[in-house]
Each structure stands twice: as structure tokens, then as C-alpha cells.
């Protein structure tokens, strides 16, 4: 005799259940259940997780029932609803969507009447309320296919209640069914369940009282125990099996009906795609399509036809075509994007002849996997594309994917700490020790760093529960741009709810869930660099010498330009897409990229995967050898001859000199070298994708490493490969994405090389983006001999522009957007009125009629030099203007001209502003200065202390001791790294510091707090010329910044407060550093 538990609340009933859906399924199997039903509160969000787990299970497994616990707002008791078949499932999904659309974000408001509308095909279990008499009418209205639940949860009156319920069931002619109303899969989770209840109710454990369950009985119990508990009514237990037998629906039936829209009448989708591809190829290869390409295209088309996925390609094509028509730059990436078909239909500009066609690999390996295309659009214009999709498909058929927000160390410790009554400053400290948002566990050393004694009982307990809570789903949020499209109504497949933004909707499932169910989606992503590139193209076009040149496009930028690669090899890459980070910049001279494929590797190599797998240095070594000897041969890892051909890995690792670097290679290794079945490989891929929140990847470790070693591979190599896979899990970066990104790396570098002024302007006009602040972008442009002019009310537009100076040189004129706090709408007025010219400041103020606040902002930014007023004079003049007209009604009449003209003033000159203060003021208003660099005014001081300048470091020999001081530009601590990177800058350039984790603890205060930093350490120079200062000591010199605005004679300060107005570093002399994790 067996049992099926049907009332299961997982942790997708947020802060109610205390176990993952997967855990329930596994436990049900362990207990030998006939079936397990997942029924979360008004939600289907967790069922796919359960299904994914179930699909991968070996041996006898329980039937998995998919349902929901309907919770009503009208006082009806909870009802568990399980669809019998696909149609009924659609109704349930629709019902939940109705409830969600009615409610605010995240909630679901249902009435009993709604259930009656969608009741057909649903098997219902009514959960009895305190007074079971009251549900007689409910049972009567539900009719057949209804069960009445009874539970034995040790409430004291269980047996009497059971007897009453049995009587009630008999009179109502519904069967009684046993449930245990489980909240967690195992009794040990009871404590965590109490903790999440407290989080939900915003109380501490001490105050929670009866909000907690009285005992620990709400777990899955063995069938035998259920029979014993229900000994007065054994038929209730037997009924669970009847219930499960009535249900045939599984999630495998869902499938996806893709929209047909883009296909013209009278054509099949396959035919249409074929036509588009052929036309596209003709356009791409005007001299004739190479045979090889035509063959691949044919193969791909056949594959697409077999997989019935032509519609998918057509919808993507349709979206891209729309973007093109609107002059929005876009670029596709992903497993299916690097195909000849996508190149032909314009989804990507990566020429398949240049990069190995990756789609082919996709064809060969992943017949089950849905094709995946992500399209990046200009970040400022992605919204137009999204609006187009909604216009085209409507809200019922297009919705965003969900993102399941999980508990991360910070959020977990904060909330659990509250539950245990820890004060905010303690939890704050604990949370503060986690750098960034990721990480899988709060470790003891972090606890210690937070100055909390890990031996402290309360802290210890909170940390251990926080670790347990980590990875629990917290709430659903909308994905940034993953669209799911449907031919018919989407809510027939998955419940849809409203998102935070008006008229946005998202489904309950996230990306991994869609993968599990093989549902296709298109990612409509935003990429700042595309905006930048488009703006650069526009600037170049506008200022072209002849004016007749064709506007550049991604695909028409001249390829393989040696000067561009030379620049990259010098690590001259500030602003260049993807390769501008510290780690990338130090990799460039070592890798010496000369081709697009090199750039693909460059993009992918500085990632956790290759780094953790220890693949970076071997690969670089081989490249160095290859540079010296073009015909060098390298040993490839091979199995022992007994088990396979020694060259079995050649095809996989050929392009990367025998060293695996990409995620795709790792997967191929699993199949070829570790002989994974396709089922196992799929499991590995899933584990990798969900590594961070489920952590099942370790189950594959033994299999992967063991089999490779058994087949004669080197054990260390096998282990490294697996470490690499783990690294991919925490931050996957497949080759197909890297190849698409490499194109953008090349294009942005090319623009930087040949049009540095346009490049800097475009970067500034696309802020915020990238690693570097405007000051660095401008500095870099000036180093590339660009003449940069300050923002000026008399000349500047909102955006930075190019203009010719008196001698006819093309200069970069900074835009008014660089001025902190100056509104774009005001800049538009300035630009409009300028067409008539501005003879004087008074005229400017009168005609633009800007609010006084805006004029002050301009004056503070020293933007009135064009009118002959310096910063102080400008401000003094602005302040004299009358305050803004209080009656907007009359504002249009005479503007400020209507106020009586103020008489000319004859006043004494204001004190002159020292240069250092000018620079400081520039930084405060523009975050950059063209007049100088803050450290130059401190140079005499530094010289006296024998502090080297950043540029001076280069002259020192390797291993020399040095002291260097500068402004902190970037602080970076790569997630897995053992080092902290800090970039300092002074008036001569930048210096790259490396601080080992071991020193960080002692220097924490300096690293976190200083704006101006003095570093002491040893110079380290690599043969490629990469220069680092290995830090031994750091000193916070922020206080020296106050010298910049200090006066010759100090004024008395209030004596009871030593520093009134705060610490110098608080006075914003400099913008804060940019920090990356």
C-alpha cells in the first residue's frame, strides 16, 4: 500500500514553504510514494523545478502532479487544483493569470466564482476550515471531481475532526482524502520554516508566538505512518492513489506554438526562411556566394525544417528588421545566432567565413536544446523595440520571462539576523563583508572580517540559517529582456502577471525553466556599446571630409586593420568594448591579438572558467611559442591507445592550441573524452546553468574526472577541466557569445584608432557605461592628440560634438550633459535660441529665460567663459538676476525681459580664484578638468617625500621599490580572485596596483575609504611590458586634498569641532571611484 502527498507547499510559495520543489520530489521517491503533487499558493512558479528534477531521476519514481493551491480573497477555504489534462492545465493557468492581473505586483486575487468559470477538467481538493460545516455549500457547487481533505497534524482533536469530516464527506457525497499539508520535505527543516515565517511576518522568533506552527509535523511522512495516522479512515489514504490515477497531464505536453506572423500568405515558414536566406547571402557576397557557405546554409535550413523552428528565426528576423528600419544598431549572439542563416538574414554581422561556424556544433550536439538567440540593441533605444513587439503580438501573446530572485548572502544575513533579534549594525557588518552581490556562502573569515565573533552564539546561529536560506527563491521579478512569444494566448501555457512598469507583463517561469521545457525565447537586451558605436558612426558621418561617403555599419567597417590590432596589443584600450577592464588590459599585451578569433579568445579567457581551470597560462605559453615558431606543434591531451584514437580531441581543441577555453569545448569534452551520454550531458549542462542556486554540479564530478582518468587521460588535466566547468557555472561565457562580442571589440577599437575624437564624444554621449569615468575618457582622448574644449553655454550642445577651431582642426567640444545637474530640456532651449547668436550674458539670460537654478549650475561649471565671465564673475552676475517669475502664466510674454532692466553695476573686482581651486571646482561640477589635474598641485609635496609619479614608474626596473600616490579611479575585486585591483591616477598617467587578499584585512580602511591613496610596494614588470605595483602598504592621503582649496592664510575654525563641514574626503573634491565586483 502506498501513498501520494497532494498538499505540498514549496519555497515558491514565498516565505511559506521551507524546501525546494526538487527536494520534495527526491524525498517522495525516497519514501516510495506513488505520486507527489506540487501545489503552491496561486502559482505554478515552482512546478518546472520539480519537473526538471523528476525528469532526471533514475529508478522507480513517483508520478509528478502539477497543480496550485488556490487561496481566495472572499473567505472560501483553500482549494488544491490539479488539471487532469492539457486543456484543464490551460484553464488553471488562465485562472491564475486573471487573479494576478487583478492584483498589484506579485499578488493574486481570486474569488470562488472565478474557479467555477474555469473548473472543467480540474480535480479539486477542498482544505477544511476550522468550522467544516461552512463548506457544505462550496462542496455542493463544485460537484464531481471534488475531494475533501483531512489531515492528522496532532492538533489534539484530530480523530474527532476526522470523524466529523468523514460524516460531512458522506453527506456531501465527496470522497475524503488524506493530506499532510506539507511545508517542508524533511522534519529537520522545521526550524528554517519558523525562520521564514518570521521573515514573512516581520517579527523576531521571540515575538512570533502562535504565528509559528505548534510542532514539526508538516513534512512528508512514510506511507506506513500515514496509514497509522488515518487508521480510523483507511479509505482516505487509498483515495490519494485514485486521485493520482485520474490525472494524465505532465509538463512534457506543453510544447510551444510559435507565432506565424512574419510568413507571407501562401508560403510555408521554411520556404520563406529559405528565400530570405538566399536573398540575404546574395547581398552579403556580391561577388557570388562561396560554395562552402552555401552548403552550410543548406544544412542549417534542413536542420531548422526538421526541428520546426523556422518560425523562431523568422520572428527574430522580423524584430531585427524593424530595428534596422529605425536605424537602431543591433547584434545577435547565442547558440543559434552564429549561423550562416542568421548572418544572411542580418541577425548578426559576424562573417561565418571569418569565424568558425558555431551553429554547426550546435546542430551536432544539441538536438533537444531550443535554439537561443540574444539580440543586443542600443541601450537608449531598446524600449522602441520592446514597444514594437507588444504592438505586433499584443500583451496576450508576448510577455517577459521572469527572473527568480534568490536569497544572496547579504539579503539572507540581513533578514535572518533580524529574525534572531540581531541589531541592524551587526547584520549590517556581516552583510558588509560580502563584496558584491554574489557568493554562495558566508564563510567564517567573512564573519570575522565583519568584526563579529563567529563563536558568538546568536551570530553563529544566524549565519548558519542564512547559509541554509541562501538559494531560496525570494520573489519573482521580470527578466531584463527575455521575451516569450506565442501563436495563441500565452496564458494558456503559463500564468502571466503584471510587472512593475505599466503595461508590462511577465510569466512565472525563468530562463532555466524555459530551457527545461524547451520553450523558445528571444532576449531583447540593451548594450551601451551599441549606442556608443551608432553615435560614433553618426558623428563620423556628419564631419566626413567629402560628405559623400557612405555611413559606416557594423558589417562595413574595414576588417583586419593592423593599426587597430597594434593599438590593442599595446593595451591602449580605454573605452573599447569588453577589453577595457584591468584584467583584460593586462591580458592584451600577453595575448597579442591579431585576428578576430584572437579577440574572441581574449573576451572569453579572462573569466572564472579558464582561470579556475588553470588554462590561461598554458594557453599563453603556447601562443608565445607559436609567435616565435610558426610551425610549432603541441601535444594534445589524449586517451590511452586502448580506449580511443589519440587525436580524438583534435577537432575540439584545434583552434585553441589544445587547451580548452570555451564552455562549448568543455561540453564536447564531456561527451568525447568522458563518454557522457547525451542524457548525462544535458544533465551536466543544466547543473552548470543552475550551479549558483542549486549546486548539483558536484554529482557529475566523479563521473567526469573518473571516466577520463579511466580512459587514460592525465588526472590533473581531467580535474582542471572540471574546475573549469564549475567556473563556467558561476559565470558562463560561451564561444558563440564571445564571437559576437569580438566583432564589437574590433569595431570599437577601430573607431578609437581612426576617429579618436568621435569615439570619445560618442562614449561621453552614451554615459553611463563602461569602466571609466568621463575624466579618463577625456584624458585618453587628449593623449591621442584630440583637442578637447570645455562645455560652454555659448557654444556647446547637450551632447558632445565635433567642431573645427580657428585653424581648422577638428576638436571635441564637451556637451552640456557633462555638467552635473543640468537638465537636458534646458540644454535644448539653449541650443534653440542660439541660432540667433548670443551677443552677451545678459542677452543669453533674457532669451533663454532659464530658471535661476540652471544658470547657477552653468556658472558653477565655468560655462560662461564664452561671454567673458569666469566662474566667480559668472556666479556673481547670475545671483543678481531676479528670482524666477512666480507666475508662470506670464512667463511666455516677455520672459525675463519683462522685468525692469537692471542698471549697469560698478563693483570692485572679486578675489581671483587660484588654479588649484579652479581644478577642484571643475571636478565638482564636471567630474573632470581641462585646466589641470588635482595631484599636480601636490607634486612639490610629493617630490619632497620622494613619491614617484605614475609615469615615473615605467622608468624603474623590475623589482624596484616605489612609492606612488594618486586618485583612486577604480577598485575591483574579481569574484573568485585572490587579489584586489586598484587603479590610481595622477597628472602623468595611471598606475595599476595589485593588493593580495592577505594584506587586504590590514589595509581595509585605506582600500575602502581613501580618495587619494599613497601606495608603497614593488614594481613588477612582465616581459610584455605589463606594469604593476605589488602593494605592501597603503596610506590614506585624502586629507591632502584639502590643500587644494586651502587659502594662503588659514582662517580660524570653530574650536569645539576640529573639522567643521566634515572630513576633507567628504567635501566632494573628486568623484567617487568606480567599483566592480
Amino acid at each position: 500500500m502506498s501513498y501520494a502527498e497532494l498538499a505540498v507547499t514549496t519555497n515558491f510559495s514565498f516565505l511559506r514553504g521551507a524546501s525546494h520543489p526538487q527536494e520534495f520530489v527526491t524525498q517522495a521517491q525516497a519514501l516510495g510514494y506513488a505520486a507527489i503533487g506540487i501545489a503552491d499558493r496561486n502559482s505554478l512558479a515552482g512546478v518546472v523545478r520539480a519537473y526538471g528534477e523528476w525528469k532526471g531521476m533514475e529508478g522507480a519514481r513517483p508520478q509528478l502532479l502539477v497543480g496550485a493551491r488556490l487561496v481566495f480573497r472572499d473567505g472560501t477555504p483553500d482549494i488544491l487544483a490539479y488539471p487532469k489534462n492539457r486543456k484543464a492545465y490551460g484553464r488553471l493557468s488562465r485562472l491564475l493569470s486573471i487573479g494576478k492581473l487583478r492584483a498589484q505586483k506579485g499578488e493574486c486575487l481570486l474569488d470562488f466564482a472565478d474557479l467555477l468559470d474555469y473548473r472543467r477538467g480540474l480535480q479539486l481538493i477542498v482544505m477544511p476550515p476550522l468550522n467544516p460545516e461552512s463548506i457544505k455549500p462550496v462542496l455542493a457547487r463544485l460537484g464531481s471531481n471534488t475531494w475533501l481533505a483531512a489531515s492528522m497534524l496532532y492538533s489534539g482533536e484530530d480523530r474527532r475532526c476526522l470523524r466529523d469530516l468523514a460524516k460531512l464527506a458522506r453527506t456531501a457525497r465527496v470522497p475524503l482524502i488524506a493530506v499532510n499539508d506539507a511545508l517542508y520535505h524533511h522534519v529537520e527543516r522545521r526550524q528554517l520554516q519558523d525562520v521564514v515565517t518570521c521573515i514573512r511576518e516581520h517579527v523576531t522568533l521571540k515575538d512570533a508566538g502562535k504565528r509559528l506552527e505548534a510542532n514539526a509535523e508538516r513534512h512528508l511522512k512514510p506511507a506506513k505512518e500515514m496509514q497509522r495516522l488515518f487508521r480510523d479512515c483507511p479509505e482516505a489514504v487509498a483515495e490519494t492513489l485514485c486521485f493520482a490515477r485520474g490525472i494524465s497531464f505532465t509538463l512534457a505536453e506543453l510544447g510551444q506554438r510559435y507565432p506565424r506572423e512574419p510568413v507571407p500568405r501562401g508560403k510555408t515558414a521554411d520556404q520563406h526562411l529559405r528565400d530570405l536566406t538566399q536573398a540575404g547571402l546574395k547581398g552579403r557576397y556580391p561577388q557570388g556566394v562561396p560554395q562552402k557557405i552555401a552548403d552550410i546554409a543548406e544544412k542549417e535550413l534542413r536542420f531548422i525544417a526538421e526541428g520546426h523552428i523556422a518560425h523562431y528565426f523568422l520572428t527574430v528576423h522580423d524584430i531585427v528588421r524593424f530595428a534596422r528600419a529605425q536605424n537602431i544598431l543591433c547584434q545577435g549572439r547565442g547558440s543559434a545566432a552564429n549561423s550562416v542563416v542568421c548572418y544572411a538574414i542580418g541577425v548578426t554581422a559576424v562573417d561565418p567565413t571569418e569565424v568558425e561556424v558555431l551553429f554547426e556544433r550546435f546542430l551536432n550536439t544539441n538536438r533537444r536544446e531550443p535554439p537561443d538567440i540574444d539580440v543586443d540593441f542600443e541601450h537608449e533605444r531598446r524600449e522602441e523595440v520592446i514597444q514594437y513587439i507588444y504592438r505586433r503580438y499584443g500583451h496576450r501573446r508576448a510577455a517577459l520571462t521572469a527572473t527568480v530572485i534568490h536569497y544572496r548572502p547579504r539579503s539572507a544575513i540581513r533578514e535572518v539576523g533580524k529574525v534572531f533579534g540581531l541589531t541592524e549594525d551587526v547584520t549590517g557588518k556581516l552583510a558588509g563583508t560580502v563584496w558584491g552581490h554574489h557568493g554562495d556562502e558566508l564563510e567564517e573569515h567573512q564573519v570575522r572580517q565583519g568584526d563579529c565573533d563567529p563563536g558568538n552564539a546568536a551570530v553563529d546561529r544566524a549565519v548558519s540559517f542564512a547559509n541554509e536560506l541562501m538559494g531560496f527563491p525570494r520573489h519573482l521579478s521580470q527578466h531584463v529582456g527575455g521575451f516569450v512569444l506565442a501563436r495563441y494566448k500565452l496564458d494558456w501555457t503559463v500564468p502571466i502577471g503584471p510587472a512593475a512598469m505599466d503595461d508590462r507583463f511577465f510569466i512565472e517561469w525563468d530562463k532555466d525553466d524555459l530551457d527545461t521545457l524547451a520553450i523558445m525565447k528571444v532576449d531583447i537586451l540593451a548594450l551601451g556599446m551599441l549606442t556608443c558605436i551608432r553615435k560614433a558612426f553618426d558623428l563620423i558621418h556628419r564631419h566626413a571630409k567629402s560628405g559623400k561617403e557612405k555611413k559606416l555599419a557594423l558589417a562595413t567597417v574595414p576588417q583586419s586593420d593592423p593599426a587597430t590590432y597594434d593599438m590593442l596589443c599595446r593595451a591602449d584600450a580605454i573605452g573599447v568594448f569588453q577589453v577595457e577592464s584591468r584584467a583584460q588590459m593586462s591580458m592584451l599585451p600577453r595575448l597579442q591579438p591579431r585576428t578576430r578569433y584572437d579577440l574572441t579568445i581574449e573576451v572569453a579567457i579572462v573569466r572564472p572558467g579558464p582561470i579556475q581551470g588553470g588554462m590561461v597560462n598554458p594557453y599563453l605559453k603556447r601562443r608565445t611559442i607559436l609567435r616565435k615558431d610558426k610551425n610549432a606543434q603541441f601535444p594534445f591531451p589524449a586517451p590511452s591507445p586502448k580506449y580511443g584514437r589519440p587525436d580524438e580531441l583534435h577537432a575540439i581543441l584545434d583552434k585553441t592550441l589544445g587547451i580548452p577555453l570555451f564552455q562549448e569545448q568543455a561540453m564536447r569534452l564531456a561527451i568525447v573524452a568522458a563518454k557522457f551520454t547525451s542524457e548525462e550531458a544535458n544533465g551536466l549542462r543544466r547543473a552548470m546553468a543552475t550551479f549558483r542556486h542549486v549546486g548539483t554540479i558536484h554529482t557529475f564530478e566523479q563521473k567526469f574526472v573518473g571516466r577520463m582518468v579511466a580512459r587514460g587521460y592525465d588526472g590533473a588535466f581531467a580535474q582542471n577541466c572540471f574546475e573549469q566547468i564549475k567556473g563556467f557555472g558561476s559565470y558562463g561565457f560561451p564561444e558563440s557569445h564571445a564571437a559576437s562580442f569580438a566583432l564589437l571589440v574590433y569595431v570599437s577599437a577601430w573607431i578609437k584608432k581612426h576617429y579618436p575624437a568621435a569615439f570619445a564624444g560618442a562614449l561621453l554621449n552614451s554615459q553611463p557605461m563602461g569602466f571609466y569615468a568621463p575624466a579618463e575618457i577625456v584624458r585618453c582622448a587628449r593623449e591621442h592628440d584630440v583637442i578637447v574644449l570645455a562645455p560652454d553655454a555659448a557654444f556647446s550642445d547637450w551632447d558632445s560634438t565635433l567642431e573645427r577651431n580657428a585653424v581648422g582642426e577638428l576638436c571635441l567640444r564637451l556637451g552640456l550633459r557633462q555638467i552635473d545637474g543640468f537638465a537636458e530640456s534646458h540644454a535644448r532651449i539653449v541650443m534653440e535660441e542660439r541660432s540667433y547668436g548670443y551677443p552677451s550674458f545678459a542677452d543669453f539670460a533674457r532669451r533663454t529665460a532659464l530658471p535661476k537654478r540652471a544658470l547657477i549650475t552653468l556658472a558653477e561649471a565655468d560655462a560662461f567663459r564664452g561671454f567673458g565671465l569666469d566662474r566667480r564673475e559668472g556666479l556673481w552676475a547670475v545671483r543678481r538676476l531676479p528670482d524666477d517669475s512666480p507666475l508662470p502664466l506670464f512667463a511666455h510674454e516677455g520672459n525675463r525681459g519683462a522685468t525692469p532692466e537692471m542698471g549697469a553695476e560698478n563693483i570692485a573686482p572679486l578675489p581671483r580664484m587660484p588654479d588649484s581651486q579652479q581644478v577642484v571646482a571643475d571636478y565638482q561640477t564636471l567630474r573632470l578638468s581641462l585646466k589641470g589635474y588635482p595631484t599636480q598641485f601636490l607634486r612639490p609635496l610629493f617630490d619632497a617625500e620622494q613619491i614617484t609619479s605614475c609615469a615615473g614608474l615605467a622608468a624603474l626596473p623590475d623589482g624596484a621599490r616605489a612609492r606612488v600616490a594618486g586618485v583612486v579611479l577604480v577598485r575591483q575585486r574579481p569574484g573568485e580572485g585572490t587579489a584586489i585591483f586598484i587603479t590610481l591616477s595622477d597628472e602623468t598617467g595611471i598606475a595599476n596596483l595589485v593588493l593580495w587578499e592577505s594584506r587586504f584585512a590590514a589595509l581595509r580602511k585605506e582600500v575602502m575609504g581613501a580618495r587619494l591613496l599613497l601606495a608603497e610596494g614593488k614594481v613588477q614588470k612582465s616581459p610584455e611590458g605589463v606594469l604593476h605595483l605589488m602593494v605592501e602598504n597603503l596610506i590614506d592621503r585624502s586629507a591632502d586634498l584639502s590643500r587644494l582649496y586651502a587659502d594662503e592664510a588659514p582662517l580660524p575654525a570653530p574650536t569645539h569641532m576640529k573639522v567643521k563641514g566634515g572630513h576633507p574626503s567628504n567635501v566632494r573634491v573628486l568623484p567617487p571611484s568606480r567599483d566592480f565586483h
Partner: protein
Amino acid sequence: MISQKANNALQVHALEARAQTLGLYKGQPLANARAMVQPLAIVPADEKADAVLVEGIADWCDRFTPLASLDSPDGLLLDITGAAHLFGGETAMLATVTQSIARQGFAVQGAIAGTSLAAHALARYVPGTITPRGKDAEAVTPLPITALECGDKSLRALRHAGLKTIGQVGTRLHSELSERLGADFVTRLKVMLGAEEKPLQPRRALPDLMAEQRFAEPIVTEETIVASLLQLAQHLGEILERQGRGARMLEAAFFRVDGKVARITVRTGEPLRDPKVILRLLRQRLDALADPLDPGFGFDLIRLEALLAEETRPATISFDSNENARRQIGFLVDRLAARFGDARVQRFVPQDTHIPEAASVAVPAQDSDFAQQNWSLKRRPGDPPRRPLRLLGKPEEISAVLASVPDGPPSRFRWRRAQFDVARAEGPERIAMEWWRRSVGESQSDQNKAGLTRDYFRVETRDGQRFWLYRDGLYQQNGLAPRWYLQGLFA
């Protein structure tokens, strides 16, 4: 270091000198301060307490001049016009004032000037300054413009113009300044420079909640004492009514001609201002005194004071009988407490917990707010009570228990040497103890601190007695046979 919540984040509000030398500063986000220095002793700011403290010092300063005014948040202004000579001249007076405040443990600095603004600035920037008559302008000229305390906007304007000292500002044309910074600024500047003066604002105290009556002829008889108490109660009642408050604690003080003072206090359960009720409570307390009030040669002063007063909710007397009953009980409690002592009249207050013995606690009845108590227990309509009305002080162990495994009720047991045979039983009601009270390190099985999971049963014996008893611990836990306890008797 003291922290304060500002803009929804904790900030450094004030800090001691040592913390300043570490580079921490006022207004710094607390998180940053923590990142920089660990460990930090942090106390939340209490601006009310600060204000009370400064008020207290101001009160104390009344001895120097009647015109002491607050210069919030941390200053005092004393108008010493015509007072200095009483303390030996200005120099001596300044020394006396600062030293005597410093002796009380405060950091203090001061200055004397012709106008309040100048004195305010000099006390902070050049403490100890005493400006000669008419020389205020010279004294403040070298001060930075921050000393003007003219608001951030004007300060910014001046700073941006490069005008850094009061002296530099003073040399500009007044028209130039007033066009840009407003006429108020120019006025302020003039006051600072001693060209104009602004009067001080004397402080005002809240009226005391007190009524007193002096008698030309000392009173002795009980009737006159009661009559005057009633008058005082009426007077106090009016004061309370004007302030919308009611007394929670009253003190009557009887001043005897020979200097002795007798005091009696009464507490009430609800804010009170009805003179008759006040009088009744006082009389009851007087009657209950072990040592009756001895008027000796008579009282020449009787004072009635509300030591503790609360806002009263304007009560609309409804016709709801419950409300009236509640009030009646309240009055009864007050009367009983006045007679037997506050601690002797107690009331049960429900506690939100599953643990039976902790489910209620007894507290002095006057302390608890009757209205907020909620005894609701989940129960099906028509069910018998789940638990006895009162429990034994301590559960008593029962022995020789016969019960079926794993969760059956006992069929027979011994309690207080008597044998009981169970005729009917219901249960178990399983109650797990509060695991978080268990000290850390104890494992799941080692549950002694927090207690074991209990299975409760309601049983009825053959003789018709009904008990509430429990098995302490489950059978499968730690191998030992669990013990049984009796915790209460049903009526």
C-alpha cells in the same frame, strides 16, 4: 560616537575627539565609519534628551540673569546687561559662568560681545573674547563667513565669489549684497558687525500639573482637609482638561506648620481627571494608612500634583454595555489597589506562545491595558475547552503510566499516590518547545534546555475527574522511556 537616522540611513551625529582624530566626521554615513574603524562604540542620538539637558543648564543659569535664552541646539545666550558688576565685571563673570558649568562635567566655551550674533560667533570661533563696547566689528572681521550662519545658499554664494571672511563681505556695497543675497542677509551682517541688535527670546516653561492651597489659619479637622482636597482636585482636573490629559499617578502633599511633610500617592488604571474619583481614591488611601495622617498643629499648605499624566482619548460613552462594564472593572481595580496596594491586584495577560505554562502572566492590574488583550483561542464552535482554566503551579510527574506506543493516551496512571483509570481520552496535541531558546551547540536530540516535544491529552477517569496531562518527549527520541506529567485539572 553617536549615530542618527537621516535620509533613511544612519549617520554620525556627534563624536568624541578621539574618534575625530581617526578621521571620522560628523555627517559621515555610519557604514563608512564602520568600514574605516573597528570596533566603534555607537549610541543612537536622543535629541529630546539633549534638548532637556540644555534646558536644565539654562534653568541653572537663571542665577546669573533672568534673561537666559536657548541658542539651539547646543548653546545658551545670557543677556547680562546690568548684571556683570554683580559678578565682579565681565571678565570675572565669563570665567565664573564657564568654570562652574565645566565643573559639572561639560565642555564649555563662551564669549561676551555687544550683540547676540557676535557673541554666538565669537564663543565658537574665538572663545574667551570679550569685545570692548562698540568694537564688535573689529572682533568679527577675521572670522570666516561660516560664522555668519546665514544659510547654505548664501554661504555658497559668498564662497563662490571668493569672499571668505566677514571682513571681506563687509567691504562690499550693501546694495550689491542685498540684490544677490536678500535684505535679511544684510540685516544679519549689520547685527554681526554691531550696527543693529536683535532682542533675545526668553524661555517659556510648560505649566505644572499642580494645584495648591495655602491656609492663613492652619487646618486640622478632617472635614476641612477633605473639602480643600476636593477643591484642589477640581482645580487640577481643570488644568488637566485644558491640556487634554489625565493623571496616572497623583501625589498629595500635606505641609505641617512645624515643617514636616506627609505625602501620599495613588495610581490609576486609566488617565483620570474626575475630581470626585480623585477624591475618592485619595480618601481610600488615607483610610488605609497604617499610620494615620497626623495634622499636629495643623497644615498650612496642601498641594495636589499629577506626577504622571497621559493624553486622554476623548471618550465617547457608548451604550455598549461591555464598555461600561470595562470601566466599572477599572474603577473597582483602582479602588482595590488603593486599599490593598498596587502589586496585590493582578490581572492575567495573554502571551503569544504555544507553551501552555507561558501562555499567561499575571501583572499588576493597573499597568495593563485591558482593551488590547486578546484571549481568542482557535476552537470549533461547540467544542469543550481545550485547556483547564488554571494550571498547576508546576507540572507534577505521574507514574506507572500505561499507554500505547507511539502516541496513545494513558489508560491508567498514579498521581499523588492515587491510582486513576482512564475512561475517555482525547489527543495528542503535539507541542514542540521553542528550539531557538536552546543554547547553540546543543544538537537536535539534546533538547534539555528548551524542553522536549510534548504530547498533551485530555483524559476523563472512571470516577469522572478530568485531567490535562502530557508525555514529555516522543518515544523514538533518545531511547529513554518518556516521563509523564499532569499539568492541570478541568473543572
